[in-house]
């Protein structure tokens, strides 16, 4: 494992029409690091996360994943040119993503959901894909739900299945977009537990979250965002103990009470 950062973001800017939602974001994520992104709604956290695997196109700056530019090719004279569908897909396949609304495929069973990526994208033989899926589903505690359709699962079960689906691609990093925000409070714990065990195994994770407990206990560093900018990026001890920025302090005061 090299020491070079796995994810490198430099001067990232993104607008929806006239509204600038990301205004020059730069940071790095090391291999094995867990980065939590917090901040008020509308601060651009989710958009930033979606730029990392190019679900959102960005207009300026660079996102690099494992040394490769995400979404664009460097053309002549430094001009950036949109990359091919295939190349973008290849990079996305190396980053697992977990969504707020789970987004399981409703027409496929839990097992089929988890097998889909390896089978279709990686061309893994069916038996191997199924073995991989069964192992992962056992790990997230869903081995008895293998044949069920997503509509029959609770939110917590769906989200755990979605994590298994992302892990089935054996990604180098996992992106979590408010993974517990759509869950009933009593179901949050089971999802956080799975995420915590992933972190303990050394998975590189970027987690947009409102769960301050998770950010404090599991994250190596916490990024506080507001108005499309990084307000503060520091270890949780500083963010939660002695924030440098008054905006961080103000935000935490509001969410922690």
């Amino acid at each position, binding site marked *: 494992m090299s020491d070079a950062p796995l994810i490198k973001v430099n001067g990232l800017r993104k607008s929806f029409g006239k509204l600038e939602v990301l205004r020059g974001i730069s940071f790095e994520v090391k291999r094995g690091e867990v980065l939590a992104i917090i901040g008020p709604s509308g601060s651009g956290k989710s958009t930033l996360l979606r730029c990392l*695997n190019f*679900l959102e196109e960005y207009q300026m700056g660079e996102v690099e994943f494992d040394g490769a530019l995400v979404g664009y090719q460097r053309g002549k004279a430094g001009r950036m040119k949109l990359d091919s*569908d*295939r190349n973008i*897909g*290849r990079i*996305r*396949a*190396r*980053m*697992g*993503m977990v*969504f707020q*609304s*789970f*987004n*399981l*495929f*409703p*027409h496929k069973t839990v097992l089929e959901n988890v097998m*889909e*990526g390896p089978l*279709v*994208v*990686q061309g893994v033989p069916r038996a191997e894909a199924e073995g991989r899926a069964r192992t992962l589903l056992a790990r997230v505690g869903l081995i008895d739900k293998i044949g069920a*359709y*997503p*509509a*029959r699962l609770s939110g917590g079960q769906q989200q755990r299945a*979605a994590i298994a*689906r*992302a892990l089935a*691609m054996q990604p180098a990093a996992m992106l979590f977009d408010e993974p517990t925000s759509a869950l009933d409070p009593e179901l949050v714990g089971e999802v956080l537990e799975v995420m915590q065990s992933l972190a303990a195994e050394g998975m590189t994770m970027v987690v947009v979250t409102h769960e301050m407990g998770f950010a404090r206990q599991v994250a190596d560093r916490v990024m506080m965002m507001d108005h499309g900018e990084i307000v503060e990026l520091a270890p949780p001890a500083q963010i939660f103990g002695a924030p440098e920025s008054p905006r961080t302090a103000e935000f935490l005061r509001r969410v922690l009470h």
Partner: protein
Amino acid sequence: MDYIWQWNQIWDYRQVFVRGAQATLVLTCWALLIGLVLGLVLGLMRSARVAVLRLPAAVYIDIFRATPILVQLVWIYYALPILSGVQMGNVTSAAVGIGLHSAAYFAEIFRAGIASIDKGQSDAAKSLGMGYGQAMRRIILPQAVRRMVPPFINEFATLMKLTTLGSVLAVNELLHEAENLINNTYRPLETYTVVAVLFGVMIYPFIWLSQRLELRWKTRG
């Protein structure tokens, strides 16, 4: 009601109805094939990201939905040959005309079906590394098709009924055969009744099937 129904004469001419029904089915099949293939292409174009694909499809759909099919059929049969120099036979003209017309409606069904699928589904497919085609085939279309079935069957029934307009181009489909028969037998009531029943018998199974499918998919979620 003093009318005396006379069915024996109709029975004697049963071959005419069979022939007409066959012609109707053949016309339906060809028109359906054209309508579906072109409709799928147009529907995908309408859903495309780039305007170069989206606009022509939108113009096509608007033109065919904004003009009467009878005018389209007559135009294709009489006007198109003069403009293009290609004279199609009456059956071909009817099949092409009805097909082109239905394509506009099928396209809208495809487009609406695709658009009805939550964006999170394509996000999830993309995040696994799927390309546009893979995501469409494996994730979006299988879900969209289920929502398309009811309007699709509806449009199919409409299409089969539209084939009766082939009579205007002297295509010997069911209605045209029936009209010829009436000229011989002077039994319009019996003849039109049989035509109505035959259409009902040909179309109803599909309506039944669509309801069954809808029910089955609903229970599975």
